[in-house]
């Protein structure tokens, strides 16, 4: 995951494609390393070049990309440029290569157009990262084992009751949604007591934002996994709803799935909603 400060590009490999991110300080680094790396990736699949923040692509770098494009073409694969701003588009036109490269708005569109995009449905591909993140977060941060139960679709008038909930919006360029984690007081207090290393007997201002922090950690881990698949989910800040036996509904329009989790201290629920 770490990037070297001296490089002006990074390469991330995914199943069926890789993403090259060009840095805005591209002109300060020798093109030789770039050329060497590009020469070795032509058979790995589709290549997506993220040009976010670039105003131009230096000619020697452009030449390397053109060479890569031609190599990929021989294998019936191709190279796509994404995040092209108007300055860079003008530059590509001026250089006469705007029609040579395939251009997409962002990673998600590029993956849709290459047939690699994940479906925008509440399937296991989308749900499992949240499920794994929930188990991982409780294990590492609170030393509590949680077991996921049967995932089910929430019924139209079904209400999940709890005493404290963490809520976070799922926002991307092409769909929205939400994640709600609802705890009964007893389970929440045990989790927080373990996290902070002292016993709490009631939910008060000192610990109430713990529900938001747990939601944030779970969302953050799931977001990384989903964005590697091209979902393009943006950063969000969680909020907390607190009240005895409260229930939340209608946060976003769309199907909702519920994942019940069991711990030795009781159950809690993760609700995931996705709407296009």
């Amino acid at each position, binding site marked *: 995951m770490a*990037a070297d400060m001296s490089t002006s590009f990074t390469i991330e490999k995914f199943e069926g494609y890789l993403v090259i991110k060009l840095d805005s300080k591209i002109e300060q680094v020798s093109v030789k390393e770039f050329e060497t790396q590009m020469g070795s990736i032509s058979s790995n699949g589709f290549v997506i070049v993220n040009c976010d923040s670039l105003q131009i692509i230096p000619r020697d770098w452009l030449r390397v990309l053109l060479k890569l494009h031609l190599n990929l073409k021989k294998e019936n694969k191709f190279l796509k440029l994404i995040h092209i701003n108007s300055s860079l588009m003008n530059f590509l036109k001026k250089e006469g290569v705007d029609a040579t490269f395939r251009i997409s708005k962002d990673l998600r569109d590029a993956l849709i157009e290459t047939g690699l995009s994940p479906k925008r449905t509440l399937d296991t591909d989308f749900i499992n990262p949240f499920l794994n993140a929930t188990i991982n977060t409780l294990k590492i941060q609170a030393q509590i084992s949680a077991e996921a139960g049967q995932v089910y679709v929430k019924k139209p008038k079904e209400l999940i009751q709890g005493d404290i909930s963490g809520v976070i919006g799922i926002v991307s360029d092409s769909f929205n949604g939400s994640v709600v984690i609802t705890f009964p007081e007893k389970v929440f207090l045990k989790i927080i007591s373990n996290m902070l290393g002292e016993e709490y007997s009631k939910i008060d201002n000192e610990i109430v934002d*713990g529900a938001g922090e747990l939601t944030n950690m779970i969302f953050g881990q799931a977001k990384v996994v989903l964005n590697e698949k091209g979902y393009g989910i943006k950063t969000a800040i969680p909020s907390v709803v607190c009240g005895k036996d409260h229930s939340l509904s209608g946060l976003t329009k769309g199907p909702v799935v519920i994942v019940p989790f069991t711990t030795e201290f009781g159950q809690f629920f993760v609700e995931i909603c996705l709407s296009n």
Partner: protein
Amino acid sequence: MFDPKTKVLVVDDMLTMRKIVTKILRELGFTDISEAQDGNEAWEKVKLGNVGLIISDWNMPNCTGLELLKKVRADQDYSKIPFLLVTAEAEQGQVSEAIRSGVDQYVVKPFSKEGLKAKLELTHKKTSARKLA
């Protein structure tokens, strides 16, 4: 490892997270720990002087951890303060941006005491070399 008397500034908008980091720091022997709720409050505390280590959340309202990092690195009086970013979203683009902005290490949430300790040791190793250079 850092001298336990090092003044540590813990920055996070979430009280719970500040308490978790502070608890671990105390268990590691640190005694001089102060807290700030966002980058703006943290910057005011940095300017009071003597901060020897900043552990800051990334995603905060008002002034993010990355904005705080850039402010610290841009001011020659404070630019060498060891800086550790805490994030729940370690995506490569973000990490690259933090490295370019001069972060010393980053910690991905959730993390254990051992995880934070290892990152602190790496931070100390890196910043000690910087002081010698």
